[in-house]
Structure formats: structure tokens, C-alpha cells
């Protein structure tokens, strides 16, 4: 990730921000009850209040899947960065250990 191998990759990266947003979005949507506490527009006779929340089951699932894929890619990238680092004598980071295991589990 980083151009300087001796430096650990930063904790907050754009990818991780996206992951956090994916995981946060359902909270904003669901806890803001006022945004969906209405009956119209209805869908096949089901009031908005109900079908909207059920639609969010699907949306939040999609968001979690995106977060999961991004997280795995992030971990793999960090793992290879850590391997490069450790060959230069720096200790492998904990995240590196996790990522290599996750990479092999996913393979």
C-alpha cells in the first residue's frame, strides 16, 4: 500500500472509509424513522412503511457484501505489503498475519 516499505500502511485509508460508510448506511436509514413513516406510495397494496424496510434488507445485504469484498482486498494488499516489509527486516504486522490467513481461507 505504502511507497515506503518501513512505514506501516495508514490505519485510515479511502477504502476503509468506504467500508465504514457501507456498514453505517443502514443505521442512518433505519433509525431515521420519520423518513419512511408514511403509507404512500404503496407497492402491490403494501404501504410504503413496510416495503421500504424490506427493501432495506436487500440494500443492507448488498452493502455488507461490498464491505466484505473490499475488506478482503484491503487485507490481501496489506499482507503483501507486510511480506515485502518483513523481508527488509521489519517485523510483520498483526494485520499481515490475519490477511495471509484470510487470503488462504478464501482460496
Amino acid at each position, binding site marked *: 500500500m505504502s511507497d515506503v516499505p518501513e512505514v506501516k500502511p495508514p490505519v485510515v485509508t479511502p477504502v476503509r472509509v468506504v467500508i465504514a460508510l*457501507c*456498514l*453505517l448506511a*443502514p*443505521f442512518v436509514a*433505519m*433509525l*431515521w*424513522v*420519520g423518513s419512511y*413513516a*408514511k*403509507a404512500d406510495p*404503496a407497492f*402491490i*397494496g*403494501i*404501504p410504503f*412503511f*413496510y416495503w421500504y*424496510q*424490506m427493501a*432495506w*434488507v*436487500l440494500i*443492507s*445485504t448488498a*452493502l*455488507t*457484501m461490498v*464491505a*466484505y469484498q473490499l*475488506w478482503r482486498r484491503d487485507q490481501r494488499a496489506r499482507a503483501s505489503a507486510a511480506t515485502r516489509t518483513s523481508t527488509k527486516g521489519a517485523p510483520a504486522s*498483526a*494485520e499481515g*498475519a*490475519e490477511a495471509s*490467513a*484470510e487470503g*488462504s*481461507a*478464501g482460496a
Partner: protein
Amino acid sequence: MKDGVNGVALGVFIFFFLAVTVVGFLAARWRKADNEHSLDEWGLGGRSFGTWITWFLLGGDLYTAYTFVAVPAAIYAAGAAGFFAVPYTILVYPLIFTFLPRLWSVSHKHGYVTTSDFVRGRFGSKGLSLAVAITGILATMPYIALQLVGIQAVLDVMGVGGGDNTNWFVKDLPLLIAFGVLAAYTYSSGLRAPALIAFVKDTLIYIVIAVAIIYIPIKLGGFDEIFKAAGDKYTAAGAGGLVPPEAGQWTYATLALGSALALFMYPHSITATLSSRSREVIRRNTTILPLYSLMLGLLALLGFMAIAAGVKVTNGQLAIPQLFENMFPDWFAGVAFAAIGIGALVPAAIMSIAAANLFTRNIYKDFIKPDATPQQETKVSKLVSLLVKVGALVFVLTMDKTVAINFQLLGGIWILQTFPALVGGLFTRWFHRWALLAGWAVGMLYGTIAAYGVASPTQKHFGGSAKEIPGIGEIGYIGFTAFTLNVVVTVVLTFALRAFKAPDGVDETSAEDYTADAGDPGVEVELPVAAH
């Protein structure tokens, strides 16, 4: 209610019940390990479950018979307010995506079987671990009792529950048999039994929901008609509605969030999680578990259908079984009843195992017999799982059903108070153990007193789980208010204790433990013994 026993439905029900009984006993031989006398084997299925088994196990565990009966019953009685179960289960998955893999890793590394094991290891405090263990056991017991209430509802509708004048023994005999069988195979097969039975249960449930959600609306003239009838009923009754009123929105949101935070504090959810093979299994599961939320949403709509179908019951819990009996042909009603009945057995088994593990690891081993061998631990756990079930049975048979429901409501408030110690501990060691204990005590006390003071038209105490939030003036979930208080007390006291340099406990975990996965050094795929 049709009079007499529904023979066809009962026959189908008994068929499925016998089938899962056989499965339950055979489960002991499934993926059997050499060292069957360890708590990891009996209580966590050897920590060997992959993505799909974990999915069925967690689904079977979290979506209980009581859920199937209570969620539509709440909709039937109050309308929109009962639908909070859907946002609640939506919020659960991003949450567990964030913290459960860390718990899995540290538990695998140190051989933790329960959440209290972790809390003791992290904060070096037996007192805090005991508080977490007792809260877990207290919250689980009424939950098991409610599974019995779910079975009772089904038996009642099939006509074998007996009327009010039947002899109590005849009336309760079917329930006694069901629980005797459950106790026997949990004892012999451990967590493997509910894991296998969960396959049967969920398959049945999915079939029943799919059929119900298509077949019943067609028979009732479509969703337009269903919601119109429901709306009319709420207006006539002067209670509930199709959309939550402005005043009810805080309650709705805090109930959803508070329940979501609480769900994975329950011992049985953790047991099912720790039985998975790797931390990947857990993350992958958070992307497929929401299928159950969708099912729950559809199931909730059955509450409206019960109204439209003209189901009239005084006990709301009977609304859905009665809807099935009225709408479905007898044989399919039997399938639906079997789904609910078996839906009670799976979580009841896991809950009793989880409560037993807590007792064995964090009360028996920590305080009574510190040098217990893995064999002794397993033996104690098996016996306690029996005791827990007998306790739940006595609870249901001797006390009014509302007592179990009140306690379950309290249990939800209580279990949420273990969140700061557990989830806080997974991310930081900053909190002081004494501050966590004090925060827990304040949360428990406030939650209990506040819940006691809630009156409803039918009950003087424990009439509901929502009350005015002090300082805000809106009505909110008591558990969430108590949780907020708990966090505030914990943070303030931690600052104070750190300032006075109060002795900190020993932390036996290290930063890498929280990200370790199967295959890493020190993390064995199957732990040889429940080593500590």
C-alpha cells in the same frame, strides 16, 4: 377455533417430530472427534462448522418459535409498532461484521468457550466475569421458557392442549414428552443435535412462509384488501395503526437499535458463533444471514392477514397458528405447526447448552472447583443443561405465561448491559474493570426499576419495554436508556480510577490475538481440550 383434535394436522406434526428426534440422536455420530469428552466437543460441536452449517445454526438459533409467534402477534395487536423487528435484524449484521470476528479470534487463541471467559481473560477480573455470566444465565432462562410457550400455542390450536377444565397432567403431557425428548438428545449429542435439526426446521419454515405469503393473500383478495381490513380494525379499536405516529418514532428506533446491540450478547448467539471453523465463516455469514430478515418481514405481514381473515383470539399468541388452521388444508397446517414446534426445539437446545457452559466455566470452574478436568467440565455442563430445561419447564407450568414474557423483556434489558465489557473489551483495554462493573450495576438497576414501573391496560407492572427517556422527554426503549447510562458511568469512573491509579487487572490477551485466524501459530483448527 375448530372443536376437537385436528387429526390430520396432528399426524403430520408427530411425523416430523419423530423424524427430528431420530436426527437428534444420530447427530452424536456426525463429524465425531476422538476426544468427545471435552467441552469444546459437546458444547461447541468441536468448533468445526463451516459457512452453511453456521448459517442454519444461527438462523435456527436467533429466529425462534417465539419469534414466529410473537412478531406477527404484535402486528396483529398494534400494527406498525410491531414491525421494529425488521430494522432490528437489519442492523444486527453490520454490527456483528465489525466485532464478532475479533471475538472468534481471541476465543480460539485462548480456548474461551463463553463471553465471560473472554471478559475474565481481558480484564483479569473474576467479579466482572461473574456478573456477565449471571446476566447471561438470567436472560437465557425465560427465553427457554418462551420456547415452550411457542410449542403450547401450536398444541392448543391443534386441540391437544386441552381446555381449561382438563386435568393438568393430560393437558401438559404433550409438552412434557416434547421436552423430555429434547433434553435426552441434547444431553447425548450436544451442539451437534440442534445444528442438524436446524436444517429440517429452516427448510420447513421457508416452505411454510413461501406458501403462506402467496396463498393467503390470493385467498383474501390481495394486499390492498388485507391492509384495508387491518387499518379499519386499528381505527375501530382506537389502538395501533398502519404507520407509527410521530410520538412512536423514538420508541421504534431505540427498540430496533437496542435489540440489535443486545442480540449478540445472548449466550446462545455466541455459542453458535464460536462453533464456526474460521473467522471468514462469520464474515461470510453476515452477507447471507439477512435472508432470515426478509423471511421475518414476510412473516410479520401474516399478522395483518390474521386480521383480514377474521381470526379472533383473545390471546394474541394464538393468532398465527389459528390463521394457519383456518386457511390451510389440514395436512399443510400440520407442516406449519411442525415448523413452529421444531423451531422451538433448536433454540431451546442451544440456549440450554450456552447457559450450561456459562455455569460450568465461570461459576463452577472459577469459584467451586478450579482444578476441574475437561471431562468433569463436560459432565457438569451436560447435567446443568438438563437442570436449566427442567427449570424452564417448571417456570412455564407453574407460573402464569405473562411472567415468562415479563422476564424475557427484562432479560433483553439486562443482557444489553454486558455490551460495554464485551464489545468495549474487544477493541480497547482503556475501560477500567471496576468502572465496567459499576456501569453494569447501574444499567441493571435502572432497567429493572424502569421496567417495573411501566403499566399497561392489562398489567400494573412490566406492561411494556418503552418509557420516557429522562432529559429528552421522548418515549424510548428502556434497555437503550439503561445502556446509555451504563456507558456514561463506565467512562466517567474509568477517568476517575485511572486518575487515582486504581490497580488494573492482568490482560492475558495481546493485540495479535484479535486478528488471528485458523492456521496461524497457536490457533489450532480443533482444540484438543478445553484448555485454559
